[in-house]
């Protein structure tokens, strides 16, 4: 797949049941615009989340991934290049071509 102009490839994994919201596919390589069109700021994780919701979330129960305000639903763990996103600035964390982002939903059953 040739990269589209002004986009970068980002590897996105959905684990712990979240994959069912994304066409039952745990692994996606997406083309993320380099700039957030709403304010022309460099793409960060917050923009990645809204991009995923708009273009890849194929399930009506969106509340399992995002709140109505567009922020990630609590209880979802995010790792950016294997590091906890809380240590990387959460939604503010800037993304670069080839970055790996993993979303894991916390399970509670037993």
């Amino acid at each position, binding site marked *: 797949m040739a990269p589209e102009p002004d986009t970068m490839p980002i590897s996105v*994994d959905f*684990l*712990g*049941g979240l*994959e069912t919201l994304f066409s*039952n596919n*745990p*692994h996606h390589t997406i083309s993320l615009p380099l700039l957030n069109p709403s304010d022309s700021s460099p793409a960060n994780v917050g923009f990645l989340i809204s991009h995923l919701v708009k273009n890849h979330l194929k*399930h*009506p*129960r969106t*509340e*399992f991934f995002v709140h109505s305000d567009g922020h990630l*639903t*609590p*209880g*979802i*763990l995010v*790792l950016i290049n*294997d*590091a*906890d996103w*809380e*240590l990387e600035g959460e939604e503010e964390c800037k993304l670069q071509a080839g970055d790996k982002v*993993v979303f*894991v*939903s*916390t*399970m*509670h*059953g*037993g």
Partner: protein
Amino acid sequence: MEQNSTKERLDGRVTATNGEQNGTSRRLTDEEFDRYSRQMIVPEMGKEAQLRLINSKVLFIGAGGLGCPAAQYVAGAGVGTIGIIDSDVVEPSNLHRQVGHATSRIGMKKVDSLITHLRDLNPLPTYVPYTFPLSPENAADIISQYDLILDCTDNPATRYLISDVCVLLCKPLVSAASIQKSGQLIVLNCPPTPQGKLDKKYPPCYRCCFRKPPPANTQLSCGEAGIMGPVVGLMGVAQAGEAVKILASGLHLPSSTPETPEDDPHNLIQPTLLIYSYDLNAAPGPFTFRALKMAPRKKNCFACGENSPQTLTLEGIRSGNPNYVQFCGIQTAKTTLPIEERMTALAYHVVKQTGILPNHILLDTREKEHFSFGSIDGAVNFPFGKLLMKAATIKRDGGDAEEILPVKSAEDPIFVVCRRGLDSQEAVEKLRELGLDHGGKRKIVDIIGGMKAWKEEVDPSFPFI
């Protein structure tokens, strides 16, 4: 760690080694020797590790899908004291995954049923039953009596409570969870480290890894979402594996904890979150097992971080602070619909039987798997997710709302039933928003309490799952 040859290890049966704490210098009885010989000859195990297991006390919180397989292997391995806490009784719907129970023990307390099974497997350990729920009032008293805690529960409020008490009492915690076709496992607070200690890197607690619980409306239980037996079983066995490893190598003992270099890939300061996911339609692939490296103890953690001694204490927990149920939210039935738009299952049945009810559409919004086991006569399956999706499409792109209904008859009233009566209320609202009530001329009615109420009020033989 013992590195002797098998022969030397066998000699250990009669030759006491140098005295060590916790009685690891005593001899094994013939019965112990026979029973545990196959695991003792595994390299790095041996007699001392076996005696550490025998001298250890493990608490299982939950005797269900995780607790059953976990307890089987921990009991089999010879851990000397095994406490189990759970207030539930064995039900037929447990048995596909809770393999420590039995058809002949349906109705028995799960703790008593599991201990019956474990005693038959290995009569040597001491088994301690607690047939009441773990609570903020009793958690510290119970947990303090054990060396290692296994979280085998099924709800977030108890998970946060267990982790908080383990931090305060300096106990390592092996935590697992599972739902539908996925499972997770992580070892926390191991080696056990006092609350607030942050002079270098230390292992995280549950709150370090999972700061906030998911909102109540997205917390699924095994009863609602379903669970595959082998998936939860695998996580329970993996918990037992970690427990035996920790106890055999003495990692649970704060005093004897060896300094583990931070860059040692086996250290538990940055433990691995193991995720097992299972696709019913696919062969095992690269996503079947994922190992994610977690961050160490966090400075700002409510339970174990820098200021945690001010925010979390045993006395606080006992007197209701923090409030775990509130923190995790409780899912309560909405009653936003006015009463004239609702009808009990029994009333629906009666008006239908007596012929007062005119032609109508009955929509059943459960998933098709649930619908396939049985439904009310004349009901049409219209899964809630599909309904929401179609409603969203009409809102966005416009179109004839009437088209989304699986049956067409523009004037007939619509009744909506779901599993327990929550989705159906939301469905009634959605259908009204789309104008399907024709400005109030057409009735859209929620059946209160769903198919659960139908079983209780109308048809006790209905296969409610």
